[in-house]
């Protein structure tokens, strides 16, 4: 059973990924991305990471992908990108290198030698059923409380940055109103969610 779920969702992940990088139309890519993210969430569940899976769905699948689609449509770039390549060699080299990286990782970290670390150095996982919600949130607010605080800086940057960038370049130095709202609201919504 476990195997079935794994292989199915693994296939979905890879199909999605390949779809993302092969889809001529960005909208398609976004949708394939959605597929991948969702199937990854399934794999999280498989590994008793319920909370992570949930956040994956909520933040990634919904917020981020939606944001992508929003931008795509906003910019109206949902058209096929030209196939012609300034540097044709780029594509070939890229694929070769990609293969090399993959092979490299697989060969170097081959077989069952992926995991060599010491076990449960920072807190043991809970029972599979629990989905580790408590454990996770516990360590999130104890061991990793500082890292948690640090995310605040990230979000401030995200807000200010997108505000600054999304302004129209025409009139500067005084607050612009339009593009400002769009992005600020979007980022704002995330920040609420992720600091909840």
């Amino acid at each position, binding site marked *: 059973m476990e195997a079935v779920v794994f292989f199915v969702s693994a296939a979905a992940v890879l199909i999605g990924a390949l779809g993302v990088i092969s889809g001529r139309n960005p909208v398609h890519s976004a949708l394939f991305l959605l597929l991948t993210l969702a199937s990854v969430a399934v794999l999280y569940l498989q590994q008793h990471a*319920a*909370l992570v899976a*949930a956040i994956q769905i909520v933040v990634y699948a919904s917020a981020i992908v939606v944001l992508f689609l929003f931008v795509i449509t906003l910019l109206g770039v949902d058209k096929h990108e030209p196939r012609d390549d300034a540097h044709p060699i780029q594509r070939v080299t890229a694929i070769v290198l990609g293969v090399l990286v993959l092979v*490299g*990782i697989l060969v*170097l*970290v*081959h077989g069952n*030698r*992926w*995991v*060599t*670390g*010491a*076990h*449960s*150095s*920072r807190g043991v996982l809970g029972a599979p059923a*629990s*989905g580790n*919600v*408590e454990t996770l*949130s*516990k360590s999130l*607010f*104890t*061991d*990793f*409380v*500082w*890292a948690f605080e*640090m*995310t*605040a*800086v*990230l979000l*401030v*940057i*995200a807000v*200010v*940055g997108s*505000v*600054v*960038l999304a*302004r129209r*370049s025409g009139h*500067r*130095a*005084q*607050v612009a109103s339009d593009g400002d709202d769009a992005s600020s609201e979007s980022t704002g919504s995330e920040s609420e969610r992720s600091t909840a």
Partner: protein
Amino acid sequence: MIGAVTVVPIAHAPVDWFAVAPEIALFGAAIAIVILRSVVRHDDRVNPASMLIAIAGVATSGVFTGVQWGFVHGNGPYQALSGLVAVDGFAVFVQAVILGATLLALLLSGGYLRRENLEIPEYLALMLCSATGMLLMASANDLITIFLSLEILSIALYVLAAFDRTRLSSQEAGLKYFLLGSFSSAVFLYGIALVYGATGTTNLTGIAKFLSTYVLLHNGALLVGLALLLVGLGFKVAAAPFHMWTPDVYQGAPTPVTAFMAAATKAAAFAAILRIFVGAFRLYDVDWRPAVFGLAVLSLLVGTVAALVQTDVKRMLAYSSISHAGYVLIGVQAATDKGTSAALFYVCTYAVMATGAFAIVMLVARRGDDRHELADYRGLASARPVLAGLFTLFLLAQAGVPFTGGFVAKLSVFSAAIDVGQYWLAIVGMLAAVIGAFVYLRIVLAMYAPPDDDADEAARGPRIVIDAGTGLALSLAAGAIVFLGVVPGIVLDFAHAATQLLAH
């Protein structure tokens, strides 16, 4: 939501605020500016106010750093916040450097922003946030915090690089930096994942402990992870072959941001490199030293050689920053205390040299920030002798002329290399310095070229205006360079002590 019913009692670990006081002070200033900006809308006094806040923040943070130094010196280094943060001399030294660079960058920015007519508060807030990220990086003792701080400083820099929306080149720089930066940090993250799998922890101290207790029969995951970490950090310090973004981004970004990037980011990233490689993975130095060696040599060659035929001064300096990364890496790969302190001293010196040089570039670029051609520097000596003199000083310092910080810095990194028996690395470094000297002297020659050849080049364009902040920054930098060159003892001892007070 899942499991929301069961109430989980969480015993809040008492947060050791002292350990993170500098970061908090800086971030506080950033927040203050943001709030001020959003509260006070149409009032120009907000600009100087926010500038004051920013400087105050840096100052406060500096004070805290000083206090920390005193404490560490007295009671020795320790780790705070369940090992995510290390409070040690190393962190304090790097933080001091970062704060110094930030201060200089802020001083430069004021005049620049007014000249280019850009939003000052947002800019300052972002710069402070980025600086905060750097401070966090300097003190981070856990791969997670390192990753987070890396992202903090990077994302802020993406925005800063693209800050000048009137210049296409600025936005292009932002985009390139963003795409490549997030690419490299993704690699970095994957590297963390592998290391985590290989050692079972992300805490550097834990890793060191693990590696000293267990001998890995299969070090594949560890080494691959290590390699990917090197990619991520190598990107940030602009080491070849991960350097290609540097010239474009440095050139496109607003010049004060370039200075900040060159000076502070390098410092922070090298702090991370030193902590991870020399600190946590010291036992595996036989494995990683050759790799760093390669990066060092490559950076030296690429950085110096590529600059030879450049005609854009800002780009030249960008390339030279690549080669300087190479010099620091020489110190890193020695994997000794000597090497570490040498690297620290070098980073410190480079921060000053680079900021000074870019400050001049900023001034000469004039409004529009687009006069970077060598021709624009013709006859600068006759037009603005002092300015030319200062630039000469900074350039010669980068070339490593005695009685400037650059000389002592190079001296110490090469010494470190020779100390571990790598004569050829030292000699390659010296020869790279020779080629580098050619680049710098080319600029100097242009400045001292009598204005009669290519007469009105210098005259063309508005007169160069030096605002108070920039002037202050320049004089500070110049003073520091000479100070570091003539009596380097003090800072060297500081750096040395810093390595001794490394928390393990």
